[in-house]
């Protein structure tokens, strides 16, 4: 199949792996961060890390939006779901994220009307089918998902739907990357950039990484050879003493992004002064809220919520995992007290979370060190 088989060709994979070996300087340790959870999934599904030399380490970034949602926001969502006459809608992964007193799934079991949807458009459909209820959509995701929410709010206005509301938890990708680069406990050599976020924002917003921090970044697709090629491109930049934004995923990502999507984002959302990220704390201008023009759809203006900041459970080290400081198996509770069936931290709940990826693909220990 075009654009599938070529990007899964084992022979080409071995050639790329050979080129990577040739680019690596003996004795130097390379730490590359894959920003997005989709890449983490591909790496473990296809065993990409097993093809890399021992001194090339891939660490997982904060690119799973479910993993970075703080407990306080989950509590706020649950409080809205318990309001009388409310149908609360969210994506499937959100259902099991623990708040301070249970998850949305627990709230559903207690009688709250909480429904899983595949898109904001599904939530709007529920609102139209239930005109005597208020339907709240728990919006979450990076710039890949935010245009979908924005278009749905525009559609709700166009169709005169007045019982549809949105609790906006959308976040933006650049501020957490900057926070990671500023973090004193991080030493990264380069980034595998997020592929589908970049279809929306383009590759240009990542130019600060080479220009201010002198690190290479390669925007990459999600097939195994996409990721391997991105690693090869980063290592080639390092070996040639370059640091640039390169676009490995040109078949889908325009350098300037999707102007129609950027326009709708600017119309429907505005930046929050700051937003809390699990493990990373408050980051300036990293979250979106609904703009004044669409304030009548803002669930946070309609319902009062606790709005309390809740500390993560002490045993959970999601913060260090999200920053790439430790590997999931180095967390004290990984695979024992914290499993996908009984998660403590968000990284084990989301199927894109680093801990879940390690667990589901059997990465329980430091196998690579003995290869």
């Amino acid at each position, binding site marked *: *199949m*075009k*654009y*599938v088989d070529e990007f899964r060709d084992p022979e080409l994979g071995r050639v790329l792996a050979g080129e990577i070996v040739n680019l690596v300087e003996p004795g130097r340790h390379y730490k590359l961060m894959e920003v*997005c*959870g*989709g*890449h983490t*999934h591909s790496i473990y599904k296809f065993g990409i890390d097993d093809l890399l030399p021992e001194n090339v380490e891939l660490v997982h970034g904060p*690119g*799973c*939006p*479910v993993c970075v949602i703080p407990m306080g926001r989950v509590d706020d969502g649950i409080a809205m779901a318990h309001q009388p006459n409310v149908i609360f809608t969210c*994506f*499937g*992964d*959100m*259902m*099991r994220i623990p708040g301070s007193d249970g998850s949305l799934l627990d709230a559903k079991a207690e009688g709250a009307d909480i429904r*899983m949807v*595949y*898109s*904001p*458009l*599904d939530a709007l459909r529920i609102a139209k089918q239930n005109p005597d209820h208020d339907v709240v959509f728990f919006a*979450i*995701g*990076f710039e*890949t*998902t935010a*245009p*979908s*929410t924005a*278009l*749905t709010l525009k*559609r709700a206005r166009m169709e005169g739907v007045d019982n549809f509301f949105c609790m906006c938890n959308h976040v933006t990708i650049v501020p957490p990357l900057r926070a990671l680069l500023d973090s004193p406990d991080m030493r990264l050599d380069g980034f595998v950039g*997020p*592929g*589908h*976020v970049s*279809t*929306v924002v383009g590759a240009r917003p990542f130019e600060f990484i080479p220009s201010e921090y002198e690190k290479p970044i390669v925007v990459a697709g*999600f097939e195994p050879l996409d990721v391997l090629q991105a690693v090869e491109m980063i290592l080639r930049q390092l070996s040639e003493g370059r640091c640039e934004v390169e676009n490995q995923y040109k*078949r*889908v990502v325009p350098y300037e992004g*999707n102007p*129609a*999507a950027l326009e*709708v984002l600017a119309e429907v959302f505005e930046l929050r002064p700051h937003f809390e990220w699990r493990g990373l704390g408050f980051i300036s201008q990293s979250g979106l809220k609904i703009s004044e023009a669409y304030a009548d759809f803002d669930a946070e203006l309609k319902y009062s919520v606790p709005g309390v900041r809740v500390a993560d459970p002490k045993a959970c080290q999601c913060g260090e995992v999200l920053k790439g400081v430790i590997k999931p198996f180095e967390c004290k509770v990984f695979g024992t007290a914290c499993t*996908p*069936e009984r998660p403590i931290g968000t990284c084990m*709940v*989301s*199927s*894109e979370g680093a801990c*879940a990826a390690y*667990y*589901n*693909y*059997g990465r329980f220990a430091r196998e690579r060190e003995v290869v």
Partner: protein
Amino acid sequence: MTRHVMQCETDHDPHCITCADEAIPLRVLRVDDERGLALCEDASGEHTTIEIALIPPVAPGDGLLAHAGTAIAPLPAEASVR
């Protein structure tokens, strides 16, 4: 050991199709220009309604990448939809 423990509804290639930086390739079957929607089909033959306001005009047979019910990029003409 349980290898695949799914926490959410996933597509055929066990990913969460809604929340991550994922996009699924779809083929356009029918276009409703007036409402800005297209009926699309995925590799398994399942039909979905997709917002098409953010990409250049599409016609039946075209491929697109969709995320959370919205097309975010057209697919090159020769690309297969898995």
